[in-house]
């Protein structure tokens, strides 16, 4: 039931978009291409996988990642496909849903491996990316996560694991330093959602905050499906912290910000990339203004081709860029680039070509270190002002 519906939904969306774009003829033409490519003989098509949560509380972020990858695939196909060796191929995106659940993550990974895809963009959450990375490593298949920031992902020694965003050791340190130096915080309370990402980030913030002399007056926990945080927030209120840091995602952070305000807590709400989205601002309503957050990467509006990307994305999917679609977009181009340089489109050749990547993409120049982490990844700070995320500064 679930499965078939999911296969139908993207088709329906594609059809709707195609209809909406009917007015502009030159627009509609490339859109028909992928469908044709999918029907073409298998030899002409190279499959690239994408996995992210398409159902559940952060499905909007999973869909955003998938849209970024899809946009890149469609662009490559519209430009005539990709020339590998002396043959030209079309790309096909094989998308799976991992429900942001580690168990489902490994199942989806196995499906991607079995589908014959040559490389994969994903997953979104650290909690799903880490267990899945073993399966891709066993298949010698390059995996580029556009958003998993937990350091452990690239510390396992897999030569197939890459990411195009800075990791949480860097992000956590930036957040803690920001609390100490810019917000002049003396006390901090830390909450996490017990996921690999949330807990990992919160632990780094706690460690660096202590080193910077900030007193940690509370360490509380929730889960990634909760909506009621009154109990832990009431406890935190008793400790009167200057800053409440949350390691978690926007879907839970929105209601949390509301409850912070309702309980009359006067603290800055500090959070990582998972919260730094337009979705948070929408969900938190008039409480959104308390947020200061970081993004593991350069802000879209600061990118040279950022505005162009935002327009293209909006036109194609009729929604706003959430967080990481620029990175999944680049990840597809990096895989295409590796295929071109290798002159072959099999898994082993792509994996062999990946470490020498030096690709100038939408999000900047991308090269990897020995572990597969991006070299010189940026962290940007944002603040909510007048109901909009406003860029503050970039730390490299």
């Amino acid at each position, binding site marked *: *039931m*679930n499965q078939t*519906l999911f296969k139908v*939904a993207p088709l329906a969306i594609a059809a709707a978009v195609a209809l909406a774009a009917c007015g502009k003829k030159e627009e509609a033409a490339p859109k028909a291409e992928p469908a044709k490519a999918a029907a073409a003989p298998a030899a002409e098509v190279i499959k690239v996988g994408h996995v992210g949560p*398409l*159902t*559940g*509380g952060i*499905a*909007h972020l999973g*869909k955003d990642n998938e849209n970024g990858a899809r946009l890149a695939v469609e662009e490559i196909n519209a430009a005539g496909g990709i020339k590998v060796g002396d043959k030209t191929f079309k790309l096909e995106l094989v998308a799976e849903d991992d429900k942001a659940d580690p168990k489902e993550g490994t199942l989806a990974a196995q499906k991607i491996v079995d589908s014959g895809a040559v490389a994969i963009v994903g997953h979104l959450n650290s909690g799903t990316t880490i267990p899945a990375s073993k399966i891709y490593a066993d298949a010698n298949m390059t995996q580029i996560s556009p958003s998993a920031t937990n350091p452990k992902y690239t510390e396992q020694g897999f030569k197939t694991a890459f990411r195009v965003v800075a990791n949480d050791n860097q992000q956590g340190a930036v957040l803690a330093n920001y609390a100490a130096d810019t917000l002049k915080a003396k006390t901090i309370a830390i909450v996490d959602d*017990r996921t690999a990402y949330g807990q990992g980030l919160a632990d780094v913030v706690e460690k660096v905050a202590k080193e910077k002399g900030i007193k940690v007056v509370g*360490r*509380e*926990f*929730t*889960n990634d*499906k909760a*909506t*009621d945080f*009154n*109990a*832990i927030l*009431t*406890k935190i*209120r*008793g400790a009167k912290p200057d800053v409440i840091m949350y390691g978690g995602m926007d*879907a839970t952070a*929105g*209601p949390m910000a*509301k*409850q912070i305000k*309702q*309980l*009359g807590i006067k603290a800055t709400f500090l959070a990582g990339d998972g919260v730094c989205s337009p*979705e948070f601002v*929408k*969900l938190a*309503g*008039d409480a959104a203004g308390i947020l200061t957050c970081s993004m593991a990467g350069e802000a879209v509006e600061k990118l040279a081709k950022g505005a162009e990307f935002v327009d293209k994305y909006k036109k194609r999917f009729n929604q706003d860029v959430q967080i990481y679609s620029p990175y999944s977009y680049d990840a597809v181009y990096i895989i295409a680039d590796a295929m071109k340089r290798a002159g072959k489109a099999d898994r082993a050749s792509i994996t062999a070509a990946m470490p020498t990547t030096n690709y100038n993409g939408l999000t900047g120049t991308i090269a990897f270190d020995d572990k597969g982490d991006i070299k010189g990844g940026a962290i940007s700070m944002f603040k909510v002002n007048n109901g909009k995320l406003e860029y503050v500064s970039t730390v490299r």
Partner: protein
Amino acid sequence: MRGLNAARGRMDTFIQQTLNGLVLGSMYSLIALGYTMVYGILNLINFAHGDVLTVGALTALSTILFLQAAFPDMPGWLVMLTGLLAAIPVCVVLSLVIERVAYRPLRNAPRLAPLITAIGVSIVIQTVAMLVWGRSYMTFPQLIPDAPVTYGEATITLTKLMVIGLSAAVMIGLMLLVNRTRLGRAMRATAENPRVAGLMGVNPNFVIAMTFAIGASLAALAGVMLAATYGVAHFYMGFLPGLKAFTAAVLGGIGNIPGAMLGGLLLGLIEALGAGYIGQLTGGVLGSHYQDIFAFLILVLVLIFRPSGLLGERVADRA
């Protein structure tokens, strides 16, 4: 003086946690009633109940958004009330359809069959809700002023006060319905023995349908309250509260109406106070991530000493 202030602060925190627990508990009670009423009559655990709640909240949301666009000058409380009044019939019809299509044909089947069907129905409703309303979390507008009522440092919003008051009123009304009316008597008789009740001139199909309808109305109300309190609505919002409310119903004694109310309130209080004080009670060994363990530990203890729940009566197995 310092000591006195600290004591005052601790007292405020305690009052706040109790209020948090009461709000949570009132909502659990309302949902638990739906589980317990159906179980009392059919011995069926209607796992789709939480998803009926979702549909209620989302229907109300759609109605509210439409009204706000069409009549921007309409007062907030009226918009909210209209949303609720739109949600109730939708939930009732949905519930009646589920009962007719999925449960009634299985009424004489082994007990596992309707249970598994209920889980299936739950997944179907979740998926359909996702297709209709989309995957994203949606903002539920703030229709009732957010102004908090404060006592010391303890605060409560108007919405939350309404949740407590409305739940109490509805529960009293339900008790009157079950104990004082003809329909209530028919319901109690059907719960006792559907066949004998049938022989006495009660139409069991009608009584069962009415039970589902009442449960669905309560679910719609709880759904709107949940969405209004937390300001969000999404396609699986009913699933977790549904599970918690089911636990509450078991805690109070499933099949027993006052038991569901007591179980719900207790579970809410245990969760809030547990999360707030478990660290202090265990000297910092256990943190707030053990709040669910705390709640379920109490459930296990109650069930060891009172297997049929706090207010449940031990009934001989039906033939």
